């Protein structure tokens, strides 16, 4: 059951827009959000795959106590095994927990399930911080910021890590660094993730180049919901794969000084080229998206996201007006199956969702139109 840490009852509102979707921020035309996630394990306990029910309960209690006791602002702690599948879906769509954590299967291959003792702490309001307990690792803490802000975000998650370490002893070795269940995270245990909006690179067929270049630099290109997810609406998450042998600052430096400026400029360059030389192509794509969202009677999540992506591009390029970028970001969240059902206040079948999603879009984008 939810538990807060004494800082005035925070309460979770699924109607609110998480801070990272509120728009603006540095390089906000291309970068939606910056995320830094740290993986840690507690000494004296096996990793999740070998942990008994008692181990898991103990880890959960130890972490809960330390998380609630060390936070410097309102924090909500949810025992996920006590929540409904629907609530976990909402948390997943808000990117506060992973899909695996929602199912209770992270770190428990072939077993696990909704009853695995596990939890998540969420900072409120804003939901910038989330700390998963008993995911693949005992602790997975993340901070998400709007726009390009990896340095600041790393500082914040680093501070949370220090506060938790004050009362918990981490599994650490000089050679391997912070020991994690999967050797792909060992070392710093740090994963940087930047959510990029790359519609122009997709339109001009340059995405494969970005993927190849990212691969050459040991970066992973993932979809909207991270690992194992598909690209939705031209949103791609770029994240580091190396965690051993490179310090947090070295990784940050590589991303901030080499990789990200190049990708951002590449997307901006293609946008400009489209506007200068193929303006009708881009106007047509934005206009069609507007047409679909205004008139469609059935919309899948993917279709809604794809068309909202073009609307976002149209707004950024001042081709259309009448709404702000945060409104579009919010609609992307509302288009997801869980949030759509939450907005309507009832359970919907897949086919009902398509109808209601189209209804919602028609209502919300009515004020959008081409700029004079």
């Amino acid at each position, binding site marked *: 059951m939810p538990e807060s840490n004494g800082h005035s009852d925070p309460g979770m509102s699924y109607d609110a827009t998480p801070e990272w979707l509120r728009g603006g921020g540095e390089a906000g035309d291309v970068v939606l959000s910056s995320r830094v996630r740290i993986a840690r394990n507690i000494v004296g306990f096996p990793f999740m795959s*070998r942990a008994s029910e008692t181990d898991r309960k103990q880890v959960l209690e130890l972490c809960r106590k330390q998380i609630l006791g060390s936070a410097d602002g309102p924090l909500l702690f949810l025992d996920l095994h006590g929540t409904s599948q629907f609530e976990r879906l909402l948390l997943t769509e808000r990117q506060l927990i992973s899909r695996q954590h929602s199912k209770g299967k992270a770190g428990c291959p072939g077993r696990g399930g909704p009853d695995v003792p596990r939890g998540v702490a969420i900072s409120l309001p804003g939901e910038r911080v989330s700390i998963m307990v008993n995911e693949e690792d005992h602790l997975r803490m993340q901070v998400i910021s709007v726009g390009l802000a990896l340095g600041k975000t790393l500082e914040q998650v680093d501070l949370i890590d220090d506060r938790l370490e004050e009362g918990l002893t981490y599994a650490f070795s000089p050679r391997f660094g912070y020991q994690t269940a999967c050797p792909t995270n060992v070392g710093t245990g740090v994963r940087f993730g930047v959510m990029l909006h790359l519609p122009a690179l997709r339109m001009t067929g340059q995405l494969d180049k970005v993927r190849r270049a990212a691969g050459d630099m040991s970066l992973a290109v993932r979809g909207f919901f991270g690992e194992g997810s598909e690209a939705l609406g031209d949103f791609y998450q770029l994240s580091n794969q190396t965690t*051993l042998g490179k310090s947090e600052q070295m990784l940050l430096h590589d991303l901030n000084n080499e990789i990200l400026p190049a990708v951002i400029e590449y997307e901006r360059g293609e946008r400009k080229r489209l506007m200068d030389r193929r303006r009708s192509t881009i106007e047509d794509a934005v206009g069609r998206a507007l047409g679909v969202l205004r008139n469609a009677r059935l919309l899948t999540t993917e279709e809604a996201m794809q068309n909202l992506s073009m609307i976002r591009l149209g707004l950024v390029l001042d081709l259309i007006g009448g709404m702000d970028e945060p409104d579009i970001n919010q609609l992307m969240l509302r288009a997801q199956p869980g949030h759509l059902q939450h907005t309507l206040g009832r359970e919907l079948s897949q086919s009902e969702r398509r109808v209601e999603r189209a209804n919602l879009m028609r209502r919300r984008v009515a004020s959008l139109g081409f700029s004079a």
Partner: protein
Amino acid sequence: MLCECGKNEATIHEVVIKHGKKFEKHLCEECAAKHGIKISPQIPTGELLAKYVLSKTASPTTTVSCPTCGLTFAEFKQTELLGCPSCYRTFEDKLGPLLERTHEGGTHHVGKVPRHALERSRLAGASGTLDELLGDAEEQAQRLTALRRRLDEAVASERFELAAQLRDEIQRTGDGGAHAPHA
């Protein structure tokens, strides 16, 4: 193009050349499954590489299991998850090449060290704990060697920015190892 069943779009196309004759099959996923054609999704390069390395490093004769949690390397190969922190020591030899390939040649940790644990051990003056955190002399030496090797590689491939970072890192490691990421 339609599948042989005439219902769905054919998405799997099989061409077999037998005795110099070409046989083509155009099937939907459902019919392909019935024909026993297995469609596996694309495997990410990292995973492919990890599997390759694991297959190369597996030892068929001896079964070593972790003294702390009982995990065997064969079990790790199946799930790609270790059982406890001690597994890193137990399977150090086998994990080494895998780690090196997964982490761009990285073999030793560089970066943050648990601050409070370090502080506590400094206050207590317990050199044992300090060694545990920072590594004993041998581990420091190994770390330095690994960093120096990467520095050579960085210079050879003219990645001067990385080289400068590595030089700083070497200096710090030589000075006593521990440093914070924001130091």
